[in-house]
């Protein structure tokens, strides 16, 4: 079954700074709707003055991702956290190949002896055409 990999989101922003205006608007208007739509993510809002406003996302495999939300509007923050909620906690690196299979071969993997006849097959004399 599907288990959302995002565990919790922590919003750290200052109550008076100018660049945290979008964050404050988001917390007033859209945070409750987001929490209702995603009941399996825990939202923490904590004010801390003096630092840049950021949102910290913790995933089930332990990765912690921090994104700055300075000078972002409320809608942009909503888009950002929906993106975070749909991600898994794996590192964002180049994917080597976009496919994977657990059963790479159905009839058996080829090896140099696959289509060679075994030693035990007996080659009889050729039958004369009737």
């Amino acid at each position, binding site marked *: 079954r599907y*288990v*959302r990999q995002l565990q919790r989101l922590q919003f750290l922003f200052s109550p008076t700074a100018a660049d945290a205006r979008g964050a404050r608007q988001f917390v007033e208007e859209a945070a409750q709707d987001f929490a209702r739509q995603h009941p399996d993510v825990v939202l923490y809002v904590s004010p801390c003055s003096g630092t840049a406003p950021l949102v910290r996302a913790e995933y089930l495999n332990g990765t912690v991702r921090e994104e700055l939300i300075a000078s972002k509007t409320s809608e942009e923050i909503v888009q950002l956290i929906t993106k975070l909620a749909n991600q898994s906690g794996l590192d964002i690196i180049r994917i080597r190949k976009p496919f994977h299979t657990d059963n790479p071969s159905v009839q058996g993997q080829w090896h140099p002896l696959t289509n060679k006849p075994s030693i*035990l097959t007996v080659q009889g004399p050729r039958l004369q055409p009737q």
Partner: protein
Amino acid sequence: SGPPREKKRWLRAYLEMQRLQAPPKRRSEQPNWDYHAEIQAFSHRLQENFSLDLLKTAFINCCYIESEEARRRELGVDKDAVALSLQDNTRLAEQGLRFARAYLTQCFESAYPNLPAKGVEALVNYLTGQELVSFVAKNLSLQDLALCRDFPAPPQVLQRTFLAVIGALLESSGSERTGIFVRDFLIPQLIGKDLFEIWEVVNPMGLLVEELTKRNISAPEPRITRQLGVSTVLPVYFVGLYCDKKILAEGPGETLLAAEEEAARVALRKLYGYTENRRPWDYSKPKQGLAAQKAISSN
């Protein structure tokens, strides 16, 4: 008087070093933690309706209760004044373990009817064993929610907590939903695993002869089918097992003995229906409530 004194230049680097060298703390001791909200989110994440008291009991381990009592004694708090009325999760863990084992045994017996009892037992032991269950528990963030004395929680504690969660689900939602839960979280761990990685078989040839006598087929006759590089350092022998001149299985190996053993293992896999190209597990919703499920819940 005058402007306030600046902090020294080395202070920032020193504080950063202290922060990096501090021992890791539990998530519950770090800022921003709400136990009740986390437990609610946990039950929503698994898409299951838990009764929250049972779930909270499931997370309490006995070592936590002992450490809490010791702490209270040290602080000098009177025992009667603040009674520690917390229940253990041992009962729920036992229930969960019994249910999981019974359910998994039933699943494997219906999916692989030819697999003998020892094989089924080996598979069930692997799926309810410490490493696998603690791995599943870690990836479901049980290590944050479980209350335990040591940090990080040892795998035994995680296994007990996970089984207690299964027990709590059994009591809250009934055996059908718990069966689906166990199927969804434990059976995918078998993907990509071979039968004989999980089940240690010492003498595959003897086992194969037993299986064939049960089915009234004559004893297998090993013959070399293919060979490559006989006089080199890395020879490859393909030994085929023939019953009544008909091929049963073929297996490769470095020496003739190793190849014969591998051929016996391949034959056993074919007989038990656990080959690599078998049908994948069926995860669809069960249509009817089986009577056997009720039999399990009364165990």
